[in-house]
Each structure stands twice: as C-alpha cells, then as structure tokens.
C-alpha cells in the first residue's frame, strides 16, 4: 500500500526544511541516506521512479557548480570549503525533491485539492511532475529518433532531442488539463476514484517528519548542534546525537515499503 499523497507532501516539506536548515555535511549525508532508504521502499514503477537518480546527478552538478563559483571571488581553502557546504545543502534539497518525485504521484496530490483551488493545484501538479514527464519524454523521443536513424550522441543533434521534448511537454500539459476537466475535476464534483487511505503509516510519517523538521528548526534558532559549521578557520564539524536521531526520523516512511503496485 502506497502512502497517502498528503503524507508525501508533508514528508517532503519536512525533509526540505531539514536540508535547508543545515550546511553540516554530516546531517546532510544522513538526510541523503534517509532519502535513499525511503526511495528504495516506495519507488514508483516506470519513468517517475527514475527521478531519484536524475536528481542525484543534478545534486552532484549543483555541488560542483556552487563550488566552482568561488573562482569569481577570493580563492582559498576556507572559501572553497564554504562554497562546497553551501552546494551540499542545495544538493540535499535536490535529492529530497527527486525522492518526492520518485515516490509520490503528483496527480494523486491534485485529487486532494479543494475544488476552489483546482486550477492552481493543477498548475502545481504539472510543475511538480515536470521532471518525471521530461524523463519519460526523453526516453520516448530517443527511441523514436533512433528508429529514424538519427544518432543523438553529438551536440549538433541536441535540437533534434530538445524540440520534441519541449513540444510534447506542452502538449501533455494541455491534454492533461483537458482530460481533468472532462472528468469533472473542478466542476463541483470531487473524484472518488481510488481514494487513498489515510492510514497509520501516513500518520506516523507526518508526525515523524514534523518532529525532525521541528528539531532542526529549533536547533537553528537556538544556535545548537552546529548546523552551520565554522568555515574560517575550518574546524571539524560536530554533530549532536539528538539531531542525528531527528534526522533518522526522515527515513521512517521507508519502514512501510509499498509493494510496487502501479499507482
């Protein structure tokens, strides 16, 4: 049984807060490991499930680029270290987002939105699903181009890949909006199609995520736990056991793995 979409929204928000509140590499590594654990237990079948790996690559790119930005400023060990830590925070946020994309169905979330907010919710769902839809489109376009004998390995063939992807992305969004409309979404009737249960796992996930985020935010306000380690001069980052325990709570949804049924 997969988790309720609202539980996933809550989980992602809390995990993002944890990532946002710290540049301590230990907490961030722990968070990424927790995300990996959750992803392994709840990965959606199909291209959506590939988001995690894609965003992991994005995260590595973010760390690299953020660290390289130091070249525009004073270059010494403390500034490089500081930039790398800032990049690591950005990367952890990307990993959280990638995990969310791989485990939660954005259109399941759309069903939860109140009627009044159907349009903004649809826009949000389309924005949230941009990564899995793009990954899906890349796969399909590559396949199609390969069948036509176009090799997509060189830079010059980038338009042959990018244009159909952008086009299909627009088209898909419009089709989706129309299909939602035709099924009565936003027309005064809420869909009862395959309602998701608000079960114990969902409740535990929400509570655990709230405790984790709360612990990090409070520690940040009190200046405890070395959430932002000193960078100049560099000192070895300390961690507090309480915050490590709180970080482990982010991994809680992974304890109720879904059985891989299509969402």
């Amino acid at each position, binding site marked *: 049984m997969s988790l309720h979409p609202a539980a996933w929204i809550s989980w992602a928000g809390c995990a993002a807060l944890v990532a946002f509140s710290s540049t301590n590499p230990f907490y961030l590594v722990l968070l990424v490991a927790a995300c990996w654990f959750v992803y392994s237990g709840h990965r959606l079948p199909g291209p959506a499930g590939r988001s995690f790996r894609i965003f992991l690559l994005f995260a590595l790119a973010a760390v690299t680029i953020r660290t390289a930005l130091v070249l525009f400023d004073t270059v010494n060990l403390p500034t490089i270290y500081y930039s790398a830590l800032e990049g690591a925070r950005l990367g952890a946020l990307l990993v959280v987002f990638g995990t969310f994309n791989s485990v939660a169905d954005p259109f399941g979330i759309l069903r939860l939105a109140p009627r009044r907010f159907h349009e903004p919710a649809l826009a949000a769902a389309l924005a949230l699903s941009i990564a899995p839809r793009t990954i899906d489109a890349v796969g399909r376009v590559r396949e199609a181009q390969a069948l036509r004998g176009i090799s997509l390995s060189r830079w010059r063939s980038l338009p042959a890949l990018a244009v159909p992807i952008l086009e299909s992305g627009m088209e898909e969004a419009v089709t989706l909006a129309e299909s939602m409309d035709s099924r009565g979404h936003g027309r005064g009737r809420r869909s009862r199609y395959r309602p998701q249960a608000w079960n114990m796992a969902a409740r535990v996930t929400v509570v655990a995520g709230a405790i984790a985020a709360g612990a990090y935010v409070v520690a940040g306000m009190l200046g405890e736990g070395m959430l*932002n380690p000193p960078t100049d001069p560099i000192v070895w980052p300390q961690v507090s056991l309480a915050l490590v325990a709180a970080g482990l709570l982010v991994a809680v949804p992974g304890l109720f793995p879904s059985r891989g049924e299509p969402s």
Partner: protein
Amino acid sequence: MRRFRAFAVSLSLAAAGLMPVTVGQQAACAATADSAALVVDTGGSVTDYCVELGGGSVSGIDLIKLASQQYGMSYNLGFGGKAVCALNGIGVTDSGDCFASFPDYWGYWIGDGSGGWLWSSVGGDSVTVEAGDVQGWSYGSGKDGSTHPQPPATAYEDVCRVKDASGGSGSKDGGPKEAGGSGTGGSKDTAANQPGRTDHAAQDPAGTSGNSTNGNGSDGASGDGRPRDGEPTPAARATEAATAASFDPSAVVLAAPNGSGSRDGPPAAGFAVLLAVLVLGMAGAYMTRGRGARHRAGHTSPRV
C-alpha cells in the same frame, strides 16, 4: 594547518606572558610606515594590535587574519569569510552564522584619522586598509552607528606609537632601533594605561636581529606564524608588549584560539552518523535489489 599555527603562536604568547621577567623587554615600538592599527572591543576588554601589512594594502578581513598570524588573536569568520562571527573568543564561535546571537554582533568601525570612529556601511571584505589606518571592531547590539557601541577613541599613534611623545623608550621615528633596552612602560602611556586594555605592538621589521634574550619558543612560533606571502621575518617577534606594567593575563587567555585543542578529531556522534548512513544505505540497496526485477518493465503509458 592554520589552526595549529595559530595555536602555536598563542601558546608561545601565553608562555611569553607568563614569564614577563624572562622576556623582560619593552616592545620596540613599531615606527614602521607599514602597519595598521586594529582595535578589538569585546565589550568587556579592549585589545589593540599594531598589525604589519607586509607591503601594500589588505582588506579589513585580511587585517584580522594578519593580526591572528602575528599575535595569535583568535577569530571566526562566517558567510564565506565575509563577516566576523567572533574575535578573541567573543561572539559566535561555533557556527558560521554570525548573527546567531543577534542583536549582539560585531560592529565595524573605521578610524576617522583623528581618534574618532565612523560606522562602516560595508563589510570588512570590501574595505581597503592602508598603512596608518585604524580599524575597530566592537561587540554589542545596535543596528547602526547611532546605537552600536563604539570602541574607545583611538588614534594610530596610540597603538603603533610613531610619535612616542613621552620619549621614555628612546624609540624614534624611522631609524632602526634595538629591541632591548627600552624603558618599561614609557611608550604605553596613551592607550595602554586605560583599565582593561591590552596593547600589542609589532616589532619594527627593520629592527635588530638575533635578540638572544627572547624565549626560544617565541622565536620558533614567530617563524610559524608568518603572513602567507612570506616576507622577511622580523627578527625579534616575541616582544608583544608584555610588560609587567600593562600585562593582562585574562587578555592572553581570551586570545587563545577558541577550543582549538579540544575540537579535533571526529567525535562519537560522527561515528553514529556514519553507522546510520551505512545501515540506511544497505537496507535501501537490499530493498531495491528485491524489487528491481519487477520494475524493469519499461515505460508505462502517459498518465492521462
């Protein structure tokens, strides 16, 4: 690496301070034209540093680093070395978030050339310090210069004593001067006789070399504590103005690098993180392996 150097310098300073009799020398005053004055007001005590610039100009932040290298002043900078979190152990010492204890923070003042202070509207990273400039940092609350506490009025001569008006030490402008043989306290009558105020004057780089009465430890540490660009070492570094008259042990204790001895090495919590990451990673890998076969079905239809 810098921590160790700073630690070594501070150890030697502490040693020099604890043995005022063996050091037994007055600072030959820095009459060089290559110094800037740095005033650090922690709110409880004021410390003056006459910092050699090593030729050319540096930024306000670099002045702090130079003071650390030359005198073992401890510091913690945040936001990528752009802001001052802590000086001499006061302020935010265990984080890179310099405003963690807001409204208390380090205010940045620039000497107006006649002993007064002007509130700097920009950070220390954007300010150029030339020889003869006076820079002040004061810890306290207040969002700008109208409410933030000012350091005590200080002119360049109070710290680096070019003029040496009292004439007690025999040091004069310009010419080389012997490091030993100065009177004690004669040159310290301007700034250093204020209560709670500590004064650090640099040795003139052109001063005499090989002063054997300096402690060995001090000389060794001075070699370690050179500024990065490696200009010639002033020979007798240990003259950090630790005269019996003005020596303030608490200032030396404060100047020790913050926790540099106790922070080294990964603590137990670090291993807890490592263990947790390993367990989570392996559990995730196990679950992925178990599920992998089922999910290699290829693309699903677009979700419409």
